[in-house]
């Protein structure tokens, strides 16, 4: 095979794998009530700790087995995906909007705007993010919207820093001066000339941030600070699985694998998108 051409033209395999997994997980989450084989909340003590399908004693209705309360693990993972994705999209987009806007302003205008924004970012990033999140949720109260809000409040700095640096680089390009020569105003130049050139980075970061949001949500669930305890979440399932690791390892392993695959896919997907978004630079 012509390796060079394959790299240029074809879709890289990691994009297929990452995108495929995300699409699968997303569709499953959206249509959870239709695809989940069981009610994720239905307990049945007769069915507790059923092993996954390939092991002796498995029940064909419970592919990935059941937990210590006899709830279907696969169904719980699918329903948990709903929360994971809602949090991923909402929190990442919120953090992205705030952070990118401030990063653009700081990078493009420089001067006091940059000094103020950069100082805030420095202070913000001095807090350990997970502790910060736990603290915020403790203050805001548990619930879906507080989790989203907390993640956005913590992680906008990630966008701000990167977009600021990219914007500064772009602003030094001659075409920015060119636009001034052409008679454009500052805000017009920022939106017209600079923004399109930092979009690939924003997209890549956004995807990465979705992965991070999934992790943070899982951590918050793990310490029981996320949503109500009844709704299945990946972090919550992991926390429960940890308690029965010796009797039923699958309750811990399957949600962990799901979580890791999802987070990895988000970051790979972002990287691949960035390269594809930038035919100009390749």
């Amino acid at each position, binding site marked *: 095979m*012509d*390796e*060079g*051409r394959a790299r240029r033209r074809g879709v890289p395999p990691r994009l297929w794998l990452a995108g495929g997994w995300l699409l699968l997980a997303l569709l499953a989450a959206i249509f959870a009530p239709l695809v989940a084989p069981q009610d994720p909340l239905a307990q049945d003590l007769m069915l507790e700790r059923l092993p996954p399908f390939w092991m002796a004693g498995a029940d064909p209705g419970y592919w990935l087995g059941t937990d210590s309360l006899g709830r279907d693990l696969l169904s719980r993972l699918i329903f948990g995906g709903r929360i994971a994705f809602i949090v991923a999209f909402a929190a990442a987009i919120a953090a992205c909007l705030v952070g990118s806007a401030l990063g653009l302003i700081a990078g493009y205008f420089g001067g006091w705007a940059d000094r103020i924004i950069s100082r805030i970012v420095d202070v913000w990033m001095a807090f350990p993010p997970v502790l910060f999140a736990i603290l915020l949720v403790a203050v805001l109260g548990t619930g879906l919207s507080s989790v989203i809000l907390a993640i956005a409040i913590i992680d906008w700095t990630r966008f701000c820093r990167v977009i600021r640096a990219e914007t500064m680089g772009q602003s030094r390009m001659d075409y920015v001066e060119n636009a001034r020569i052409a008679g454009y105003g500052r805000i017009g130049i920022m939106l017209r000339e600079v923004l399109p050139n930092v979009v690939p980075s924003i997209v890549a970061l956004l995807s990465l941030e979705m992965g991070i949001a999934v992790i943070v949500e899982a951590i918050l669930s793990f310490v029981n600070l996320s949503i109500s305890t009844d709704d299945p979440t990946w972090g919550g399932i992991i926390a429960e699985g940890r308690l029965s690791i010796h009797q039923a390892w699958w309750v811990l392993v399957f949600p962990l694998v799901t979580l890791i695959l999802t987070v990895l896919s988000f970051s790979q997907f972002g990287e691949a998108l960035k390269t594809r978004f930038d035919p100009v630079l390749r």
Partner: protein
Amino acid sequence: MSAICLDIRDLSAVLPNGQRVLRSVSLAVQPGEVRALVGESGAGKTMIGKAVLGVLPSSVRIVEGDMLLEGEDLGKLQPKARRTLIGARTALIPQDPLTALNPSRRIGPQMTDRLVRILGWSGEKADTRIRQLLDEVQIRDPDRVLKSYPHELSGGMRQRVLIAAAFAAEPRLIVADEPTTALDVTVQKQILRLIVQLQREHGTAILFVTHDLGVVAKISQRVSVLYAGKVVEEADTAALFAAPQHPYTRALMAATPRYTDPFASLKPVDEAVLAGLASEIAAADQAWRRSHG
């Protein structure tokens, strides 16, 4: 005199898509001469220098031809032996003196490293040698320079340091890759003078890669004009400037600005010349493909 210093015979290199970037290049550098390689961007002149030094990018593959360094066929040596031979007998004066030096290390250790590591000299011997060379490139305060970081020196100073480093190990051949392109004209003149002066004193052969026919005229004894990886003309420098044979060489000379003759110079290259070149290269490629199935 001894054998030919560098003998390149029918060297062809291709990109992964099969396109030839060097087209049966042959050239010989005699011991102690300055041999110019001149061409515009994409002519492959830097590529030849890299091929000699064994640092071609991995995408470029040599498919044919031999390179003999003082009679030793580089292609027949094991990679390790080849590296040792190239390391001991050649050196590079790079185009950009800033990126050629590690910004986070002082000049001194960067200069002695090569002598100690590749040639196995003692640190003391290397240090003495470097100071001697710094003196030869007219650096009057070697202590300060050796202790400096690259960004603390001016462009001309950095280039002097790199010239000193290149000559320090007494190589037989130096590849100078556009060493003055990034410099101001007055500094360029000093640096060219320095290179030629050291070259004569040390009897080193230089393969001098440049795009500037003016520089070619001033420093080289023999010259190859390249276009698209092909040698279109090869001549003694004096003969080339007296009577350029190939239409492309003539066009290049007419395009080069001359303040002494502003309206006879800066002539855009004629389309017919470029068309002629294109068909010349197409014919060469066809013949090459035929003989290589």
